[in-house]
């Protein structure tokens, strides 16, 4: 027999191993993590497409009465809590933009309570404001509306 003849049993084993490796690799490739579905990436509050739980919620509200020239007026003070527990990473400094009021005068981080005042409201009125998360570097993230009732 020539030198390049080998034990056929060994050849069978070698072939079986090769086939097993090939199938294993295919299975490995098939079972591995697949592509990222961008539509599912919506849980970062800084994402403009954020679709998770509301980031801003009403913490408290008060109706303040005052008189000007004998006429009674009412201001609504609204306390908003920013749910920093929804942030995915260490909490950076951020700003909150309130429709009709403007950007919060201070940057928040770790003190998620924001208070703003809506002047001269009527008693019983439901006042809603849109709030949005912002960074000083630009761009807007999560946003939602918060409503409060002016009541004594």
């Amino acid at each position: 027999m020539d030198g390049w003849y080998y034990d056929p049993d060994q050849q069978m084993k070698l072939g079986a191993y090769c086939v097993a490796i090939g199938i294993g690799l295919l299975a490995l490739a098939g079972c591995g993590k697949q592509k990222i579905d961008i539509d599912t990436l919506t849980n970062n509050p800084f994402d403009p497409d954020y679709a998770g739980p509301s980031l801003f919620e009403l913490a408290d509200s008060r109706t303040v009465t005052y008189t000007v020239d004998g006429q009674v007026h009412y201001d609504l003070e609204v306390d908003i809590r920013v749910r920093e527990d929804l942030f995915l990473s260490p909490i950076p400094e951020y700003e909150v933009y309130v429709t009709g009021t403007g950007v919060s005068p201070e940057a928040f981080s770790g003190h998620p309570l924001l208070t703003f005042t809506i002047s001269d409201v009527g008693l019983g009125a439901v006042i809603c404001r849109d709030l949005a998360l912002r960074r000083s570097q630009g761009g807007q993230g999560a946003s939602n509306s918060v409503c409060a009732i002016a009541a004594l």
Partner: protein
Amino acid sequence: MTLRSAYLYLFLVAPFVVSAQSAGKIRLLVDPGHNFKFVVDKQFKMEQREVELSEGLHHFSVWAPERMVVDTPVFVVADHTTDLVVRLPYSPEYEHYRNALSRYNSVRRSRIISTVALAGGLVWTGVSYSIYASAKNQLDADRMAYEELSTPGEISVLKDKTIPEHNDDLVKARTGLYVSAAITTVAAGAMVYFRLVTKRGDKPVFEDKEKVRFEGLAWVPDAQGSFWMAGITIPINK
């Protein structure tokens, strides 16, 4: 008459006898053009291209390796050179050997090619898997980046540009891995098949039976008349 006296007759006396006769030449034009032998009148084995013989009818047995022995009568004309054109056909044993050797070499080439293909396929699969794993790791890094980024603009770039590109890279890498793994599997199957096929047969060996027959044609007369010379072939290259 002893064997020695027979040779003396053949080489010393016969030429004088022949010289008294008219003689002619035979020029052998044989296919193959070289390495042929012939026996004249079932007695004298020769290899030259021309032979001078006495006038009259002679018998030629021509042979060459791998060819059949061809027997033919030749009439020698005095003082004239006659061309003897002979095409020696390949012997059936040689044709059978040639076909078997061709099959053997073909299978052997297939064994080598399939083995090389398997080795190449394994390397290719390894590289493809490395690329695939790298693409997967890149997407894992993108997932991490999405969670760590806190700038809306950077998140938009990540989602609109970076991740789609890396998704495409993953698809390409996975396709490459599928193809390379499939080819490797096929190569492994081919290698096993050809190994199994070729294990059944040894390398064909050519036994030139026509040579044995040709060697047995020559005989030399002795005291009792004649004796046959026979030859056998022993392949010493094994």
